[in-house]
């Protein structure tokens, strides 16, 4: 695909979501082919997890703030617990081939309707230094931009890595 934006659409059933940058996904019913959205969906300033993040069952509300000017890194900060922060990334910069299968029913908890746009972000872990930075490709964060709802979706493809090295992929 040649587009520089990040949107893709998904189909019901055996659908596949593909995107160069894989941050935007549109939920569509039926047999529509994968297609690019005309623009990059905008992240909301606040999100509420419709289903809890595994391990953080009491944390539902997070603020979203950009960490860079490129639209790559974002911080999700708990509205409830000061200092609790996830760093998330738009995967396309690091994993251009990352195009997980999504189905509308997978993200039904988000309350999305047909045609709604959802965003895909991966959780980044960077403990010691940037060389050990990893991203969780197995369970990305899916955000319904228009509704401010979010969900950490465990993808059915068990071969996806939970800790994919970030920068090795960036070159």
């Amino acid at each position: 695909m040649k587009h520089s934006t990040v949107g893709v659409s998904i189909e019901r059933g055996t659908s596949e979501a593909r995107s160069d940058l894989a941050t935007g996904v549109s939920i569509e019913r039926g047999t529509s082919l994968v297609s690019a959205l005309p623009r990059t969906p905008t992240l909301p300033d606040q999100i509420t997890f419709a289903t809890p993040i595994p391990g953080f069952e009491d944390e539902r509300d997070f603020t979203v703030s950009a960490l860079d000017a490129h639209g790559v890194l974002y911080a999700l900060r708990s509205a409830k617990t000061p200092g609790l922060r996830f760093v998330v990334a738009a995967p396309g910069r690091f994993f251009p081939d990352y195009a997980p299968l999504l189905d509308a029913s997978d993200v039904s908890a988000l309350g999305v309707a047909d045609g709604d746009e959802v965003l895909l972000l991966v959780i980044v872990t960077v403990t010691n230094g940037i060389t050990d930075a990893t991203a969780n490709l197995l369970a990305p964060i899916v955000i319904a931009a228009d509704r401010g709802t979010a969900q950490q979706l465990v993808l059915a493809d068990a071969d996806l890595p939970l800790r994919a090295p970030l920068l090795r992929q960036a070159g």
Partner: protein
Amino acid sequence: MLILTRRVGESIVVGDDIVLTVFEVRGDAVRIGIEAPRSVKVNRKEIYEEIQRSNAQAVSSSDDAVDALRGALGTPADGAGPSAAGGDADPAGPRR
């Protein structure tokens, strides 16, 4: 914990719309079929626990390491670049 004995081909119904069926028993491995609404998340427990651990590690990412990562992206660390604390969350931003 409720413990039931089932034979191959027999099932267990959980609630109104979840059915677990024993398909095959071979040695210490059991193949189980699960019929459930797509909205019900079914995961191998060890994967779910791995994700819990991974999430717990993720929130412990240090600010220094995150700053270093931003630097590795070629992000301006200061000056004209937008503040890390800024609330501008528009991924479209300057990218074209």
